Structures are given as structure tokens and as C-alpha cells.
């Protein structure tokens, strides 16, 4: 005996209620689509227009996975601080001195993590981006962060 165990069907036709339901929902979907065409998409997270320096800051942010720690909208999550408000100076306690010593480029120094000015500071899981991003890329990111409310 050759083993061939097909699964039979009680009926081959489509029940009338299933056809009616499908037709009604497809028509409803078409009507909904036709009556809801007004609107505009927001920029995709991490991919808006290029920053002034010609580098796409949010593209860099996405590639560097900043949102994995700082949240999808960079407003912070768990122990990771919000990146909104970088323009007002550092929020974290351990960065206050750095902010005071380097008011213009403290964020660049902190993100890069390679300058002696940040040596010894507890990075709390923050990667040393100076090893993977160029100074221009970090500057583009900081410029973008400063535009956040």
C-alpha cells in the first residue's frame, strides 16, 4: 500500500455567508480608502531630510541603534536619559562638570568617548562611538539633537 493520505473536504463550494461577508468587507474597505485619502505621512523615524552638513543625522542615529536605548522617539527609557533638550546642556549628574568645562562641544565629546576630557566618566552602557563614527557624523547627530524640543 502506498501511503498517500490526502485531506478530504466536506464541501467544495464557498458558503454563501462567507462570500457575502467577503464582498461586504472588501466594498467597505474600498469606500474607506476612497474617503480617507487626505493627509500626509510624517518622516520615517531616523530618516528625515539630510542635516546641514550633508550627512543624514537621523540615518546615523538609526544605524547606530541610538533608539534601542534612548527610545523610539529619543525621549529616553528605563535608565537611559532623554536626548531631547541637549541644547540646554547635559541632564545626567555625571556630565554636569563636562558640560561646564565644554559648553559648546560636551555632547560631541561624550558621544565620541575617546577624548581625555571624558576619560574616567561612567558611561553606563553608552558605546564609544568615536570608534565607529567620524567626527563629522557625530557633529551632524549633535546638530540634529539640538533641534529637538
Amino acid at each position, binding site marked *: *500500500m*502506498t*501511503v*498517500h*493520505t*490526502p*485531506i*478530504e*473536504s*466536506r*464541501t*467544495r*463550494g*464557498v*458558503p454563501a455567508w*462567507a*462570500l457575502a*461577508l*467577503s464582498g461586504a*468587507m*472588501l466594498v467597505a*474597505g*474600498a469606500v*474607506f*480608502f476612497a474617503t*480617507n*485619502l*487626505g*493627509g500626509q*505621512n*510624517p*518622516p*520615517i*523615524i531616523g*530618516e*528625515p531630510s539630510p542635516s546641514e552638513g550633508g550627512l*543624514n543625522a537621523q*540615518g546615523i542615529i*538609526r*544605524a547606530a*541603534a541610538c533608539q*534601542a*536605548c534612548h*527610545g*523610539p*522617539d529619543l*525621549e*529616553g*527609557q*528605563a*535608565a*537611559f*536619559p*532623554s536626548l*531631547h533638550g541637549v541644547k540646554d546642556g547635559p541632564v545626567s549628574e555625571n556630565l554636569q562638570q563636562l558640560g561646564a568645562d565644554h559648553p559648546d562641544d560636551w555632547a560631541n565629546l561624550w558621544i565620541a568617548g575617546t577624548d581625555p576630557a571624558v576619560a574616567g566618566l561612567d558611561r*553606563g*552602557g553608552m*558605546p564609544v562611538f568615536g*570608534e*565607529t563614527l567620524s567626527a563629522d557624523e557625530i557633529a551632524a547627530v549633535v546638530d540634529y539633537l539640538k533641534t529637538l524640543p
Partner: protein
Amino acid sequence: MAVNPKKLRPYDQPPRVRRPIVPADPGNAATAYLVAAVVWFLLATGIGLLWVGMQLFPDVLSLSLAMPTLSGELTFDLSPATVTSGFWNALVYGWLGNAGLGAIFFITPRLLGVRLVDEGIATLSAVVWNIGLLAGLTALYVPQVVAGGALTEFPLPVDGALLLALLLANDSFWRTLLGARGGLPYVSIWYFGVALAAFTGLYGLGTLAPLLNLPDVGAALANAFYGRALETLWVSGVALGTLYYVIPRATGNPLYSSGMAMLAWLLWLGLASLAPIARLVDTSVPFAVTQVGNVAAFLLVLPAFLVVANLLQTIHGRWTRALAPGTLQFALVALTFLAATALLEGIGALGSVRALVARTEWAVGVQLFAFLGTATLAFLALADHAFPRLLRRDWSSGMLAEASLWAGFAGAAVAGLALIAGGIAHGSLLIQGAPGDEISGTLFWFRLVLGAGVGLVALAAAGAALNVFLMYTGAPRAEYAVVGETAPAGQ
């Protein structure tokens, strides 16, 4: 004449059996994929626990190790970013990928009544797939060699190996299908064909995309489309095909309506192909295009409802079988998740809801419903049905299967709901203009519940792995019919 084996001379000994390097016996490919799937299930949920832990206590769990090499310094990073990638890749490619391919190679020959063409090639694809995946998963923790967005992070050589494995799997599947005689194949095969072709096509595009040097916006949009299409076409397609197989088998009933099944398949094919367009959210994409995807995502509830109704009608008259632990219970829970996921996807596609939960944990919660709920329970149902037949063991579902079922059910529900509720809370706080600290504090508790849910799913994985181990080592051998060969007496 009787021969005394002790008096055999060397040249009287029977020739040694030469075993092929890649086993090619019937069922080898399905066994390889399904056993690997169970191991990956355990691994993925373990990484999942770390993923939740990283969200709760990132400072405590983060770790970075530097290793000098000839070409510079390699860094091994255990950070929220790398662990998040590790979890999703292990879940989607490790557990769901292996289980899906295992389902295809187990079910297809049985429905077509023929042996798998080139079983050895299919088995080889399992070997290449899993070795490649292991290398890719390891590479994820070395940031210097990783590129791309979610689910497309693997280095190019790894992507190439995985793509090769998929092409080998396609070769075996399509040649088996095209070589089979008979009328139209059963609906499961239709789902498998689309799912496998879509998976291979998407993975190929995902591998080639970085070589095309797309602009950043284009790359991000392609990545968003890829992740969603993988869910709607591959994961859900192969899970639906599996449910269409295991429920009639577990009940012994014929399918309620093949016409309704084909109608649902057609609707699923069209809508699941369009739904990922909803992820193309950017100023560069016309709103009408994105809206096509939103409407399709909303309408996906229709084929899901037809599938659930068809399969519940199939069980009709055999409901008492659902009281016993085993395949049917797993499948019923999977159907529950299928209905819930479709409803949540539909609700999430509504404009007002999108406005509230966009960029929150909502989408991840619904995705956990689909991955850890619908697909995981469907594949556990298949595992319960398939392993005794593949390992040829007399094994009936017992306490461990029951523990896996309820832990998996509760875990997936708790984890998904925690993120869905967290997403609603997050969205509400954003609208109120709450400060980041308050949002983080609120989300902490939802993530704690998420951890409990993922922990329960990890227990389910441990139960499933232990069940297979005990089945293989402790259960007596049993004869099952081999597809395409003469059945043992009594079958």
C-alpha cells in the same frame, strides 16, 4: 547453512555500509529542521529574557569586551542594541524559520503522497541554514561587522549562506510539488508555496539592498517593508498552512470547506502582499500609497476570520478530543491568537489608533502575539504531531506538552498585552506632553510584566525541548508509515 559468526574470516565479513555525509532518508530534512527549531526556541527565549533585562537594568547587564586582532581591535558588545537584534533574529530566523521549513518538509510529502525530491539537498539546506545562522547571531554582538536595520544585520557572507540554504530548500520543495501527480494540491501547499517563495525573494532583496547603495530614506523604507512582509507572508503563511494540516489530522475529520479555504488563501495572498506597504511612512511616499497598506492591514482580519471559522467547523463533532492534551489543544490556542492578532492589527490600522500608538511599544506587542502566539503555538501543534512520526517513537502527549501549552499560551498573552497596554500608556503620555522620566517610569512596570511573559514562554520552550529529548531517549520504538513506501502491517 548456519554460520558461526565467531569463525568468520575477514573476507567473509559483510561489506561495511557507507553512510552519506548528509543523510537522505525520508524525513531527515524535516527532523533536522524541527530539532534545530526546538533548540533555537530555547535559545531565542533565553535571549528574550536578556532582552527584557536590558530594558529594565541596562547598566547592570551591559558588557563590552575588547580583543586585539591582526587587523585592529574587535569589540564584543552585550548592549541593549545587540541583544535586541539577537532576540529578534534568533526568534524569526532560528525558531520560526527552522520550524516553518520543518513544517514544509514534513507536510508536503505527506499531502502529495510522494517522497521529497532530493531529501539530501533539503537536509543540506538545514545544515547550511543553521551553521549560517549561528555565525550570524555571533556576529551581531561584534558591532564592527554588523550593518543594516532590523532583521538585515548579518554580514554579507552569512547572508549569502542563508540565501543558499533557502535556494536549496526551494529546489527540493518545488521539484517535489511539480513532480507530484493528481489534482489541485491541498490548501496547505498553496500557503507553503507562497510563503517559501516570498521568504526567499525577500531575503534575496534584503541581502542585495546594501549593495545597491540606496539613499538612507530608501534603505529605511525597504527595511520597514521587509520586516513586515516577513511577518505577513512568511510567518503567517507557513503557520496557516500548518494549522490547515494539523487540525484535520488531529480530529480525523475532513476539512469543512475547501472552497472557503481557497477564498481565504486568495484574500490572504492579496492583502498580506499589500499590508507591508503601510510601513512606508515617510514624507517622500504619497499618503494614498501608505493608505493602501493600512486598508489591506485592516482587511487582513477577513481571511483570518475565514480560516478560524473553517477550522472550527472542521473540529465540529470531535470537540471532546480538545479535552485531551496534544495537537488539537495547541492548534486551538493558535487559532485564538490568530483571531486576536488579526483584530489588533485591524484596530492598529485605524487612523485614530495609529495617531495614538505610533512609535510606541504597541506594534511590538502585536508582533509578539503573531510570533509567540499564533506561529509558535501552530508549530508546537505540528511538533506534537510530527516528532513521534519522525523519530519513530510511541509517545503520547503528557504533562510536559500540557505544561508547554499553558506556559506558552499565558506567556505570549502576558508579553503581548504588556507591550500593547504599554504602547497605549506611552501614547497617552506623549499626547499629554509628559516628561521623559515619567514615561520611562511608567513603562518600567509594563516591561516588568513583559519579562514575566517572556519567562513563561521560555518555560514552554524548555518543556518542548525536554519532551523531545525524553521521547527520543525513553520512548519505545514504533513503526510509522514512510511516505511513498509500503506501509507496515496494520496502517
